[in-house]
């Protein structure tokens, strides 16, 4: 009976302590959640990465389980204080440069396509120009200053023969 009376005395303080502990737990959880990066922060990086499994799908909108795991990995690495570049480098190391939405900033990545385009354009330009204006145009109208233009040996000899026959 004495114990029960004692318990009643402790009941209220114990209940208050328990309530305080639960409240602290909620507060700590809330604080911990505040430290976690938001979806927007994760997607800011994820949109520049592509899922190598489901091709041509940016990581921020990819619905697969693999992509969900990778977004969580980004969140975890952001929480660890890693920078955007460090996270992207991690993904390149693990999954290859093809996960990047833009090729790595290497000279060849830009130079080769640019040179290929210029070479193709130049070739087309020359081709069309030569097609529209043939190399040698024989004029239908004889002119007096024909001698002004260089002629090949065959034409020169032919003209000489014609003159002789006159």
């Amino acid at each position, binding site marked *: 009976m004495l114990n029960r009376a004692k318990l009643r005395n402790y009941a209220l303080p114990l209940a208050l302590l328990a309530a305080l502990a639960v409240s602290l737990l909620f507060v700590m959880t809330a604080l911990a959640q505040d430290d976690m990066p938001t979806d927007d922060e994760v997607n800011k990086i994820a949109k520049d990465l592509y899922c190598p499994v489901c091709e041509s799908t940016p990581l921020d909108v990819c619905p697969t389980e693999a992509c969900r795991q990778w977004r969580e990995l980004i969140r975890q690495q952001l929480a660890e204080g890693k920078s955007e570049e460090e996270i992207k480098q991690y993904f390149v190391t693990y*999954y290859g440069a093809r996960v990047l939405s833009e090729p790595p900033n290497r000279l060849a990545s830009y130079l080769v396509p640019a040179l290929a385009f210029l070479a193709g354009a130049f070739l087309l330009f020359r081709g069309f120009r030569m097609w529209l204006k043939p190399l040698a145009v024989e004029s239908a109208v004889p002119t007096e200053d024909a001698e002004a233009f260089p002629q090949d040996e065959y034409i020169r000899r032919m003209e000489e023969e014609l003159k002789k026959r006159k």
Partner: protein
Amino acid sequence: MTESTNIAPARKGVPLWVQVIIWVFLAGLLGIVAMGLNRAQQGTIQPGHAVDDFTLPLYSGYEYQGASEVKLSELRGKIVVINFWASWCKPCEQEAAELQSAWEQYEPTGEVVFLGVDYVDTEPQARVYLKKFGITFPNGPDLATRISQYFRIKGVPETYFIDREGVLRYVQVGPFTSLQQIQNIIDPLLSE
């Protein structure tokens, strides 16, 4: 009456060497595109192909004889079973227990090595998967997907069986459905 023919000045074309360079360049580009298309249609590497050497880094706790990475060339003389898997791959779960059973059966012989190649996965999830299925054979990530690109895998799971001479002998696309299925491939290789 005099008559003369007017010939327009000969137009100087693109120098031959420039034309050659351009055509070679364009042919090279077309060649690269053709190779890419050809490769895309080829499928996985075929049995009979001598497998090139590669190095697989291993997750801690899943090392091979205490080493943190394993080179295929170091396993010459043994039968090597290379299993591509991922923690997000549901069909991989179907064969996980069978693969582990096979490993437990063949590991004591020292003549067969299983290598798990974790394809485009995250390490924390991979570890959860390995623990869940009690997998103990060497496992590691396929860094930059170099190994899977070499084998030209079309998905996971896929398993490749390499004989003692380093020649690919069998390709399993999709999950194994029984331990017997794995034994039927390894046992003939062991008896050779």
